[in-house]
């Protein structure tokens, strides 16, 4: 047997199996406990918890999309929120069109905000969104195209490091300003809201929520498997190589910009899907999703969970958002920013590799094995 016949890394490593297992359990149990138990039962999961957890799952998918490009390619995008929001808007536009005559003005064509701005006709870019398949395509296409155009320019010109980070931030900031404008035809600051139903199902019914929750879990699971598949392929190895030594990759004959571009577009589409699942569950999409602070927060989730671990990104998103939910209620409410800020500082100082990364290190130390074929441990290098 040839010595090169070493076992390739498994598609789903142990931690991934645990992650998918928990996810599957949650995906089934939460809707079940919500729908099938009486509200008084000890194990009942109230509807608001379902939509809350659903929101966390979409955030986890969003974090995953960031980890794909930040953890594995070293692209620190401070504009990932833009792709999330675009996916959300695509879904929101579909949901708006579904309202039909049930808006307060009862206009069959125009959403309410257009009626009271005295608009007479539906703008051209709203056409087609009454069809669900079209909306689904746009959920992928809108963020994907933006990422393609932006990435094509930026990667070809070899904009890297903080320069790239700052122009991604400028991108989402420009979109924020644009979507704030009422003249754009996306509802201005109020955004899109007051949705009625999705594919004919009442968007507020427990059943729909349960299904949306399940779909979010499914999307997260599939997103994880897709990311794993990508990073362990030859393509993924090139990505990691780009992260560590981009010049070397170029001198080895790979077009680094194309690899980055593919990863960036895939990541944007994942973010778009997350946005599309987010909107029907929280019931509103508005320009504040484009705000640069939101995008920075996504980075924070990933860093807390552990950059370059995928599972960590998802975990970080859920943990930070759970902390946010927890801290913003009750007697802690006035102090929650202290807690959150303190958490970020503490994580950087004491868990520099994030929760999952630190866990790996700890495990490595306990059970030393020179063969590190399982999960390539990232050595996050300074961007600049």
């Amino acid at each position: 047997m040839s010595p090169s016949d070493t076992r390739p890394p498994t598609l789903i490593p142990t931690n991934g199996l645990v992650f998918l297992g928990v996810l599957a359990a949650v995906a089934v149990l939460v809707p079940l406990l919500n729908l099938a138990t009486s509200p008084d039962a000890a194990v009942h999961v109230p509807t608001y918890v379902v939509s809350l957890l659903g929101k966390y799952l979409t955030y986890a998918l969003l974090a995953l999309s960031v980890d794909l490009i930040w953890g594995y390619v070293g692209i620190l995008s401070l504009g990932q929120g833009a792709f999330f929001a675009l996916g959300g808007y695509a879904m929101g536009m579909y949901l708006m069109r579904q309202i039909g005559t049930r808006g307060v003005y009862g206009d069959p064509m125009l959403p309410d905000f257009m009626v009271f701005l005295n608009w007479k006709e539906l703008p051209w870019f709203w056409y087609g969104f009454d069809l669900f398949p079209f909306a689904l395509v746009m959920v992928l296409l809108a963020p994907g195209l933006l990422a393609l155009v932006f990435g094509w320019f930026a990667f070809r010109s070899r904009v890297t490091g903080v320069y790239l980070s700052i122009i991604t931030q400028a991108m989402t900031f420009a979109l924020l300003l644009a979507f704030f404008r009422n003249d754009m035809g996306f509802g201005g600051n109020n955004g899109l809201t007051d949705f009625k139903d999705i594919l004919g199902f009442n968007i507020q019914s427990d059943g729909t929520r349960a299904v949306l929750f399940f779909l979010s879990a499914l999307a997260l699971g599939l997103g994880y498997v897709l990311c794993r598949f990508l990073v362990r392929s030859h393509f993924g190895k090139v990505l990691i190589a780009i992260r560590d030594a981009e010049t070397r990759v170029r001198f080895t004959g790979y077009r680094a910009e194309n690899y980055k571009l593919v990863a960036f577009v895939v990541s944007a589409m994942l973010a778009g899907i997350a946005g599309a699942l987010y909107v029907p569950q929280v019931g509103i999409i508005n320009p504040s999703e484009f705000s640069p602070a939101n995008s920075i927060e996504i980075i924070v989730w990933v860093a807390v969970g552990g950059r370059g671990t995928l599972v960590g990104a998802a975990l970080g998103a859920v943990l930070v958002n759970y902390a946010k939910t927890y801290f913003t209620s009750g007697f802690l409410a006035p102090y929650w920013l202290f807690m959150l800020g303190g958490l970020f500082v503490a994580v950087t100082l004491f868990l520099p590799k994030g929760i999952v990364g630190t866990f790996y290190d700890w495990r490595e130390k306990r059970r030393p094995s020179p063969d590190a074929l399982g999960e390539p441990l990232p050595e996050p290098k300074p961007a600049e």
Partner: protein
Amino acid sequence: MTATDTLDPPVAAGEGAAKKTLTEALLYLDGVTVTFDGFRALNALSFTIDPGEMRAIIGPNGAGKTTMMDVITGKTRPDKGDVFFDGGTTDLTKLDETQIATLGIGRKFQKPTVFESHTVLDNLRLALKGQRRALPNIFRRETAAARERIDEIFETIKLTEHRGRLGGALSHGQKQWLEIGMLLAQDPRLLLVDEPVAGMTDAETAQTAELLRAINANGHSVVVVEHDMTFVRDLGVRVMCLHEGSVLAEGTLDQVSANERVIEVYLGR
């Protein structure tokens, strides 16, 4: 016959080393000048490399050795001058690093640069000649031929038992060899090797010289930049000394080290 074929080989100022014509040379540099903020890193540099030739380049710091490699590999664009590859068929100044690498010019950096969070094996896999486009590589599977070729390279660079370790975990010398191995895996027609024995023990240095000679014997052209005179002597090839961005002297090591100017600016008395 094209017009370029009839061009006389340019004669470098103050130096009468024989030059191949454009069509004969694998690599052809003529009058290459590079300036950074007023500093002339390369000053009308001209030389050629033959197919199958191994050449050692020496010279003091700042002589322009690394910049020369940057120009050949497309990292730096010359302000003036011609850089042709493969008998004048390809103008390297019009291409970028990736295209040049694909043409068959491999480069080893001064500071050993391997993919530190990949295993040694994956480092070779990535370097191995083959599909370079992004999308097909998502679904690429490793062929038996590729596996054999990698095993061969492992034999050559003597890292077989380290194949499972991370690139970043190797010693300095091992990284140098891995990088040479990666160059081999690319199967280039011309290897540019920048200070391959820096930081190596004497034994390792000798082994490296042997390795490079073997590579050259296999039909690869090699350009080695090195300060280590023992190593250069071990290589036993034609030597060229750069100074202030142009060729100061060229010939056998003995000829070059006897050159007054070389002694003055580089070797010291």
